[in-house]
């Protein structure tokens, strides 16, 4: 007698379902974290400790990244600009790139690697060693107690570190342009002032706030949902970085489109009329 078996679920559908379930779980996790931030259900000393780790301890690596990216951009772009006789416009292009894109994105990526992975590993270790369960038994919601201060610290400090990366990027590129390639400083700065607007700085910093929140939420979520054992802890740390990196790129694209749309709405582009 023939029996009918249900057709196998396509792998793509299963993957999509898992991704949607994970996104839903992450959203609920984020809601709990923000509830913790609003109610302040964590110790101030924990916020200070995490802020030190996120902020002060990241200054070196952020400074180095910002400075070198600025210098490399100057070196790479100089050839083309010099050929066209646009040396003095280098500052405008480089500074715009740093303030709008490279500063926020690279600072966030560095933080995802340095801080996000460490957060995920720390929380995963706490899960594996039952410290999260111990917190629950002692009447504390571990999400609000541990994740809320970490996310708050990243939301506050990522834009500050981005400003630092931006400044070091400007310094690095200016050093190369003015000292190595001996570009006229007056016109260099004049073009920079003409092209780099407050709007560019504001959109860059707005992005960095969102990057900080998202990367820390991903890191904490991975840590809280780590699998058992050393392999589980390692995997949580890796996933925290990879997922945060992908999220930063996607958000960057979305935010760039959104920022342009908003700018065009308030300051419509002037289209030249042909008589």
């Amino acid at each position, binding site marked *: 007698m023939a029996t009918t078996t249900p057709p196998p679920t396509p792998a793509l559908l299963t993957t999509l379902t898992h991704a949607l379930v994970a996104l839903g779980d992450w959203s609920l996790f984020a809601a709990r974290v923000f509830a913790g931030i609003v109610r302040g259900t964590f110790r101030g000393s924990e916020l200070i400790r995490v802020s030190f780790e996120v902020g002060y301890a990241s200054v070196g690596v952020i400074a180095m990244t910002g400075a070198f990216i600025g210098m490399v951009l100057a070196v790479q772009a100089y050839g083309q600009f010099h050929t066209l006789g646009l040396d003095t416009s280098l500052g405008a292009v480089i500074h715009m790139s740093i303030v709008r894109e490279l500063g926020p994105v690279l600072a966030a990526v560095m933080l995802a690697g340095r801080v996000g992975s460490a957060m995920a590993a720390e929380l995963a270790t*706490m899960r594996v060693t*039952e*410290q999260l*369960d*111990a917190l629950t*038994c*002692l*009447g504390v919601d571990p999400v609000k107690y541990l994740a809320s201060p970490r996310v708050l610290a990243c939301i506050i400090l990522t834009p500050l570190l981005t400003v630092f990366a931006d400044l070091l990027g400007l310094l690095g590129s200016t050093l190369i342009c003015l000292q190595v390639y001996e570009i006229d400083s007056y016109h260099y700065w004049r073009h920079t002032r003409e092209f780099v607007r407050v709007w560019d700085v504001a959109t860059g910093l707005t992005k960095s706030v969102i990057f900080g929140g998202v990367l820390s939420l991903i890191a904490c979520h991975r840590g809280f949902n780590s699998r058992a054992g050393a392999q589980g802890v390692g995997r949580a740390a890796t996933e925290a970085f990879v997922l945060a990196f992908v999220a930063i790129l996607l958000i960057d694209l979305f935010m760039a489109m959104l920022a342009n749309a908003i700018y065009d709405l308030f300051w419509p582009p002037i289209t030249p009329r042909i008589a």
Partner: protein
Amino acid sequence: MTGEPIIQLRGVSVRFGQQEVLTRIDLSIAAQETLAVIGESGCGKTVLLKLIVGLLQPTEGEVYFEGASLQSLSERELTRLRLRVGFLFQQAALFDSLNVFDNVAFGLRVKGGLSEAEIAQRVRDRLQEVGLSESVQAKMPAELSGGMRKRVGLARALALDPEVMLYDEPTTGLDPIMTDVINELIVRTRLSRPITSVIVTHELRTVRKCAQRVVMLVPRVRLMPNDESQLIYDGPAAGLATAADPRVRQFVEGSAGERITESNSTD
């Protein structure tokens, strides 16, 4: 012993994904009783303990605490209930970032109602009760030996004067002398206050010294066709060696028997 059940599990099953760990468990624990839950690794002892305090939710069935189903409690009510239960974790689960004093004081600060001076006094008392001096208060958990970590974990659990103490393998990984120290502390804890204790262990010295009643769990893969439950023994510690079920006697004797080759183990 005896009295109204303070904890009850009725038809409790727990499944993680496709893997079923506990199936239709029925168990009542009387107030001020000391119950030992024994069984080989992977049989679901720790899962059973975590069900009692609401750290895990049953897939089927209900867990009752003083007649109230844990599933029916709000998060706030569940938190209040948890503060009445002390839990000594397998590796003590001390908070790495806090020193011994802050670990023991943690629950007291969360619960509130005590001044810092009263908290300091309570911490000193509990540390003294588990045989630790004041000099240990400033140490970090990483500086402590396994036995000391267990003592601090016990002090932290007892700081809130719990009505129920849950011990998850309290003597695992300790030397024989430290094992006896922890066993003695469990007995003293029971004698010094009206407390219900549930001890998950596979250490028979702990069972014989501390428990008034013993239940034995078998992993689902070792269930026989005529088994009605995973609980294959429920009685006094003295009856373990002469139990009717050969699996209980094999566990007590610690003999490998036919188990030298694992063909269907979940471990």
